[in-house]
């Protein structure tokens, strides 16, 4: 059975909510491209809060996850706008620059986003980024250390499956 319980795309209702709230841009040309340093730095900081380095595995940004996310926005307008709006919102909550915050302060903001109304911008941004970041990060073998997973399932399979 194919299924996935997460609806990570913005729904029409959610897009409309953002429009009506005045959050979604009406003048797109006024916006900076998502691959500009303004967004890349915020995105890196956010992703490294979600997936920091520890003793055995690297951080999200060390594996280039921020760039993969930015690459993914090129064919998805709503996603692109969500990233921009989310980064701006983070900066706004951080007195201008999320990247200047210490880790405990970043964590505090993310905890708030995680608990926010699921249709609000902070929650939509957080949930989508968490979902995408986990997929991209755990697609890389460097992230598998400590899991008992050393390689893709094929070509060797798991002949030790009973042990």
């Amino acid at each position, binding site marked *: *059975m*194919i*299924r*996935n*319980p*997460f*609806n990570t795309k913005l729904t029409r209702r959610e897009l409309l909510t953002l429009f009506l709230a005045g959050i979604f841009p009406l003048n797109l040309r006024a916006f900076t491209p998502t691959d500009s340093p303004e967004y890349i730095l915020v995105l890196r900081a956010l992703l490294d*809060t*979600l*997936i*920091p380095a*520890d003793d055995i*595995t690297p951080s999200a940004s060390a594996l280039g996850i921020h760039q993969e996310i930015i690459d993914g926005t090129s064919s998805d307008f709503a996603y692109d706008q969500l990233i921009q709006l989310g980064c701006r919102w983070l900066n706004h909550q951080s007195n201008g620059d999320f990247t200047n915050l210490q880790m405990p302060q970043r*964590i505090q903001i*993310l905890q708030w986003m*995680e608990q926010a109304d*699921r249709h609000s911008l902070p929650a939509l941004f957080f*949930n989508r980024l*968490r*979902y995408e970041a*986990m*997929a991209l*990060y*755990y*697609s*890389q*073998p460097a*992230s*598998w250390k*400590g*899991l*008992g*997973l050393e390689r*893709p*399932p*094929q*070509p*060797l*399979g*798991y*002949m*030790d*499956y*009973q*042990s």
Partner: protein
Amino acid sequence: MVVIGTGAGGSAVAWTLASSGVRVLALEAGPAYSPESDYLLDKPHWEKQRFPYKPNSQGNYRFAQMQKLEERWSMLRSWNIISGQNNQGEYRIPSRAGYHHLQGVGGSTLRFTGEAHRLHPESMQMQSNYGVAADWPLSYSDLEPFYQEAETVVGVAGPAENSPRWRSQPYPLPAHGLSKAATLIKKTGADNGFTWVENARAALSMNYDGRPACNYCANCNRGCPRRDKGSADVTFIHKALATDNLELRPGTRVLRIIPGTNNRIKSIDYINQNGDEKTLSCDILIMAAGAIETPRLLLASADKLTPNGVANESAQVGRNLMETLSWSSSGIANTPLNSFKGLPSDSICWDYNHPTSIPGTIGGCRFSLSMSEADLVGPINYAQRIVPGWGTGHKQALRKAFGQAVTIGAIGEFLPNDKTYVDLDPEEKDHFGIPLARIHSFLPKPELIRLKFMMNSCRKILHLAGISGLVEEYGTYDYFSSTHVFGGCRMGIDPKQSVVNGYGQSHTWKNLFITDASIFPSSGGGESPSLTIEALAIRTGRHIARGLGYKPIA
């Protein structure tokens, strides 16, 4: 001889005919897959994509508005430990694709788990014995030799004991060894109402027929690059092509069926690989496009001779559709199991499969280990779906949980009802101007009682195995999510109540046959249908070849 569709039914009938010396042309709307190069299981990003769908590998269809969800059945809503209640709306909706099929050479068998089940004999006489659904116009005894033949071609591995599905011969291959998770679940035991046995699987437990044994990578649903899974492309199609009697044309979409005189189909119109529309005369036409596309094509072929569609003289085409009634509960065990390794669905419980085994409703179900079907076999899905949080704590929790997810899945009988059917969408058409199929689905009370039993039982099995912390439950009360779809061209004895006879032959159009799951009069109590589709198709192929004076080539 023209066959439309090369899934389980189309490939099996094509092989039967081709191996009898009959020249066969098989038209497939989807692409051909190369197991070695198209599947991604040897790539680092293997988990990101469930199956590598190619262009035109999925059909286009619509859903009619589904039923309003009721408070009294709210316990059946799907949920997840991270996202909460999945369907936030008031109505039942399709889960993404909803109808999980595949167009391509091999059809949905390319991404199926590969459970190779025979139907419970009692499930074939639901009207006579229990006053529901319809009787099959053939018995288990009639079908048994063809089950055996299908199992031999596919290379089914199964246990020695499998009553009440009596066997004339043992399975071609011994059953697979159980995984650690299966061993844990088996301990829940018959004393508690759940007897677990090795599942019959279309996956090789030994080298067989030029194909290598399974290496237990746990990802049948992502496509098997080794060809040990018995999908139709590496079994029936492979063997049919070896006879030189089969011509296979992928990327060929049939537009309409043209009826002729003397109750015979004259020809079909189709679009070839170059995008050109062509007409093809057919002595015999065999449809095997699945329980949605076959009714659609028959209905969309209405003309002066057949104003309600081909073979729809009794207004039965599209009626009696049956979908997948399913539930799964996932939890995290407190002991390492390496549950991302091993053969998917290696263990099964048939104790509630008999039509009368569930209190308060007619129709059975079965339970199986379903981590692979739930897609809990890699770190991405663990991280996204069942290990909450983020930060360093999330990494640590993931390392602790990975390999300990256990999913119990249940699939149950779906009885036909008047509100579940397929028709033509009045507005939406495909690129060629042919109306799309529209799926109508309704779950009446008997189905919901059965689903609730399935839910409670899945939870009980996990509890008995010592797994108390549920992390996700998913069911078809709030989502239409069907891997198995049946009916729509029911077979039967009475032309007023059915579309085809017991050989899949139209009651009216003597050179028109159907060999897909659309002809099922009842769904069975959770058995996976591919083996039954193949057995029926072989039987039909033998019948046609015999009528033409052909005999199987030794």
